[in-house]
């Protein structure tokens, strides 16, 4: 019997749903083959999240609590992850593929001499390792990948697995942590945060995404209005984050966030492959574009050919009626 460890990411005082998706999947894998599944929480208030993790069936929950984890910094996070790996010797350590994970995964693999597969859309255990599917070539193709070794790290795209509650009587283990000044080396000078009230795109059930067709404040207002009606997160194509109309953290695509909501409404987005790579796994895709030949229509479940400035007002109005 071996151990599958899952990293529980905390962001803005909440457990990232994507890490519970990964935990749900690991629990299923562990039960099937008689392994144990454990979880680790690293945060300034780590122990306050224990109850939220117990629901998903971890037999042990490691808690690393220190004020330094208030904001993401790679040096302390790496040290904490390495400590936990040392204490638990997991055969597989699974992460949700967040920006924070991406920041440390390669370095942790090098530090632990572990085999690593990043950003997979699914994985299974094999004899002596894991096999996984990884979207490659701007997510046009799936690669069948294998990792072998005594320690394996894997990060999983958000939305790849469903949440499955499975309450367990988890043992909670506190792991010591300390870092002296000399070890830190890097200085976090400032955080330019935009999050506030905005909905996390990786967690959103619905996303309204704006592209080049959204030209002005009037267009932005329509986007916001539609998002409000649907309680949706707002995303944008690279063109609009580069122009400064939307914040860079809202960019969806190969370079930005990879999302898979229940409903994705692409507005004035042509559908360049780099954008599609970030949203093609959405359950239902709606596209609104005035160019009938826009590639986005090839992947849209519902395509509306028309000027977004004319289409959105009645669209919003009708949705309001449905919601009422």
């Amino acid at each position, binding site marked *: 019997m071996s151990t599958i460890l899952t990293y529980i990411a905390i962001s803005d005082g909440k457990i990232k749903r994507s890490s519970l998706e990964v935990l749900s999947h690991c629990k299923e894998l562990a039960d099937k083959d008689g392994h144990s599944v454990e979880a680790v929480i690293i945060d300034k208030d780590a122990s306050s999240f224990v109850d939220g993790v117990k629901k998903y069936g971890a037999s042990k929950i490691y808690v690393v609590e220190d004020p330094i984890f208030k904001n993401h910094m790679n040096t302390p996070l790496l040290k904490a992850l390495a400590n936990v790996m040392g204490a638990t010797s997991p055969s597989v350590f699974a992460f949700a593929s967040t920006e*924070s994970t991406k920041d440390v995964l*390669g370095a942790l693999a090098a530090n632990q001499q572990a085999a690593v597969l990043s950003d997979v859309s699914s994985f299974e255990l094999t004899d002596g390792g894991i096999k996984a599917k990884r979207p490659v070539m701007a997510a046009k*193709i799936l690669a*069948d*990948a294998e990792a072998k070794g005594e320690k394996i790290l894997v990060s999983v795209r958000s939305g790849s697995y469903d949440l499955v509650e499975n309450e367990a009587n988890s043992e909670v283990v506190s792991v010591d942590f300390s870092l002296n000044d000399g070890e830190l080396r*890097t200085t976090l000078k400032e*955080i330019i945060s935009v999050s506030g009230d905005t909905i996390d795109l990786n967690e959103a059930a619905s996303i309204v995404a704006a592209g080049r067709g959204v030209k002005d404040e009037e267009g932005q207002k329509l986007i916001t209005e539609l998002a409000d009606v649907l309680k949706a997160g707002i995303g944008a194509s690279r063109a609009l984050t580069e122009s400064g109309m939307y914040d860079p953290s809202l960019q969806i695509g190969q370079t930005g966030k990879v999302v898979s909501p229940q409903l994705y409404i692409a507005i004035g987005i042509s559908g360049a492959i780099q954008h599609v790579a970030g949203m093609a796994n959405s359950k239902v895709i709606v596209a609104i574009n005035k160019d009938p030949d826009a590639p986005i229509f090839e992947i849209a479940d*519902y395509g509306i050919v028309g000027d977004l400035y004319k289409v959105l*007002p*009645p669209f919003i109005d009708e949705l309001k009626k449905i919601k009422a």
Partner: protein
Amino acid sequence: MKFYVGIKMVPDVNAPLQIKDGQLIQDADRMILNAYDASAVEEALVLKEKHGGEVEVVSIGSPKASETIRKALAMGADKATHIQTTGNEAYDSATYARILAAFFKDKEYDVLSFGKQSQDTDAGLTGGMVAEMLGLPFATNAVGLQAEDGKLLVKRQGDSGQEMIELPTPCAVTCSNDMNEPRIPNLKGIMASKRKPMEQVELSSLGLSEDELTPKTSVTGYEEKPGREPGKKFEGEPDEIAREVAQLLDTEANVI
């Protein structure tokens, strides 16, 4: 500042590709400089123009990769090192990182810079691995760089905002393509690139063992992504089709 920028020749993801017997078949002529690496080169050049220093590019690859290296030299990099491989190897991120770490081990530099991922595999691991192997402080997913009193100021895109991080040198950084528009080499740059030094380094000269060159991960095959069923396209009076689709999202797709 002395910059080393790690660059990679990759297939153009926009080029047509097909899968035959689980293998990826691509036009061998459609190889390009990884877009994220191009941004790393551009940013190093901008900092050199501002503060002085030197930009050297390093690439691991087959003899053909020299074309990609020339492109970076034509953009303005001062010199290059080409670590030669046959091109038939199946290295993973960790193998590339071990080769790079072995190369950088006894070099002098202020900043090692990389693209944050390569656009064909999107693994995004090598930069962090090299940093850890060399014991360097590092930052990933940079969207802006500044040099200040021998320190590197990195603006990186995090999960919910941008973080300003100060790194002492030597350090490592991985770059997003959101930080700049890489310059297109002009004729003068292209001519000059032909006279710039490109050192060839034999992989065997780096002293790596067979074990260190053996990857722990492998790709066993490729498959088409299950395609989406073509959906319904609505054309006509905006008011009518907009309301019709809104209704269908509720009654048919069940997502409202």
